[in-house]
């Protein structure tokens, strides 16, 4: 499924071209790609090894050179103290709801505009939220939800949508929802843009044929256009999910994990433990676990979705 069949007819001229390329040394392609790979190993392999090493020590930023070996102590602490597992659960809830909502909205909006004469205008308009600085967006939503002066509450009350003001800061579900709303506002455009691009790139002949056969617009979209879109939907969702799972800026600005750690994501957990409580050993242990999961997910996503689309 993941391997693309290569016809021998296509390979032969490529081989011939390769032979003619006799005057290029064999090491040339490696030399061209090596600097980039070396640079990237610096932010992947080096941090992993370093975090792995640190994770076996009781270690603090404030007292360098005072590390003591604790074996798997940091790891057992992570699972005994509920904060880490809670942050994993929070991350899944918050990023899961965000991506689900963004996906449904982006697909719906893309379906509504891609054959519209003003598609360019809609695209530019809907794109705008993505182009604001994420930290500024977070402050803007913090203010829109701020207790006592919340614009969101005021609008919902004055339109009769809700009888009383909601506590977006103190209620765990609402605090999580406030992060989801901000994320949906900011990142639905990402998926929307990709979906519109993919729909426009499609050959419209199939759609026309289906319409001639009497299919309705939504049937055409659902049964003809959408199935062809699946590979690109998968890639877009992988990219968006990864960015949603690593959510940090919004949590740092809007909630700082409050109330009672209910909005603390894994990224924020590592930051708080490592850089606020200076417990480098525990933060390193959490980093190692996250990296192992990341590597596994990335391997799977690449071989399942990216390889077939990009080879």
């Amino acid at each position, binding site marked *: 499924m993941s391997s693309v069949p290569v016809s021998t007819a296509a390979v032969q001229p490529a081989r011939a071209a390769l032979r003619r390329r006799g005057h290029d040394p064999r090491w040339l392609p490696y030399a061209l790609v090596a600097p980039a790979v070396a640079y990237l190993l610096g932010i992947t392999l080096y941090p992993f090894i370093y975090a792995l090493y640190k994770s076996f020590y009781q270690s603090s930023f404030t007292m360098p050179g005072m590390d003591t070996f604790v074996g798997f102590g940091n790891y057992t602490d992570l699972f005994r103290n509920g904060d880490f597992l809670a942050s994993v659960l929070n991350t899944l809830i918050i990023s899961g709801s965000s991506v689900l909502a963004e996906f449904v909205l982006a697909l719906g909006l893309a379906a509504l505009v891609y054959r519209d004469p003003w598609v360019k205008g809609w695209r530019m308009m809907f794109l705008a939220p993505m182009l604001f600085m994420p930290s500024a967006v977070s402050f803007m939503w913090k203010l829109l939800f701020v207790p006592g002066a919340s614009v969101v509450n005021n609008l919902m009350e004055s339109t009769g949508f809700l009888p009383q003001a909601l506590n977006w800061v103190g209620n765990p579900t609402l605090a999580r929802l406030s992060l989801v709303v901000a994320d949906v506002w900011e990142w639905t455009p990402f998926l929307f843009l990709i979906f519109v691009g993919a729909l426009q790139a499609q050959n419209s002949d199939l759609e026309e044929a289906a319409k001639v056969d009497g299919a309705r617009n939504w049937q055409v979209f659902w049964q003809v256009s959408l199935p062809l879109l699946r590979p690109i939907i998968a890639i877009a969702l992988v990219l968006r999910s990864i960015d949603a799972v690593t959510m940090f800026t919004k949590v*740092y600005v809007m909630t700082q994990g409050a109330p009672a750690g209910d909005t603390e994501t894994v990224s924020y957990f590592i930051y708080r433990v490592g850089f606020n409580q200076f417990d480098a050993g525990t933060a390193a242990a959490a980093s190692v676990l996250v990296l192992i999961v990341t590597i596994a997910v990335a391997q799977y996503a690449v071989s399942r979705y990216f390889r077939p689309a990009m080879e």
Partner: protein
Amino acid sequence: MAKSRRVSQHSSRIGRYLLLACWAFFCLLPIVWLVTLSLRGRTETMVNPPIYWPHFTLEAWRDTFENWPMWAYLRNTFVAAIGSVLIDLLLAIPAAYSLARFQYRGRDQIGFYILSTRMIVPAAVALPIYILFKNLHLLDNPVALMLIYAAINLSIVTWVIRSYMIEVPREIEEAARVDGARSIGILLRVTLPLSISGVVTASILALIFAVNEFLFTLLISYTDSAQTLSVGLAMFTGGSKGIIYNDIAVVALVTFVPMFILTLLIQRHLSRGLTMGALKN
């Protein structure tokens, strides 16, 4: 039959525009709010009930540039982001050419390793990278930010450029080869100029991501000798009410305009760039 179908198509168009208008409302209302926020005094930023039509004043625009080290933030943002894009191009153009044009053992593994670094969790590598820069005495230095941003964006820059290079017709390259040009010469004189829209798209996306970066910038920079706009605006606090929202709104709008213009330049290539080249136009 035909008539009823036309009527239903007409009403479905109204329904469609109604739905689009709903989203446009949700999408644009916060932006309009941001604009009015930047045009009001601080006493009107956080009141109950919220003020939608403020007493217009340019106070926040003046304050932002007078009370905060905006020029330092702008300089640091500019230096770190532009520098990172240059590093990316220097590393990514040869790498993309190698991946697009040569057949060799391990090529796919190398290529997809580069791609998979797009999926790294920043917070999980933050601690080792912080300590690395500490040991290099590069903390609170825009050069450190430049190096970080370059690393974050290298995978997307490489893969976007590769996807454009792979579409350059081989015949053109072969013609140059017959004339005696070597691969490096062909890359610089033929392949690169023909994939320039990929290079521009990748550069603009990398620039935007670099300007927006928050986590590493927060950790590695702590004074205005390195802080960028993205982190600098989190310092806009003071007085009994804490965060100075109207000044933050000014920064948000000031940075939005160049981002919007840059995106307009590459709008046809945007979906392709955001999927790292997976989606062809």
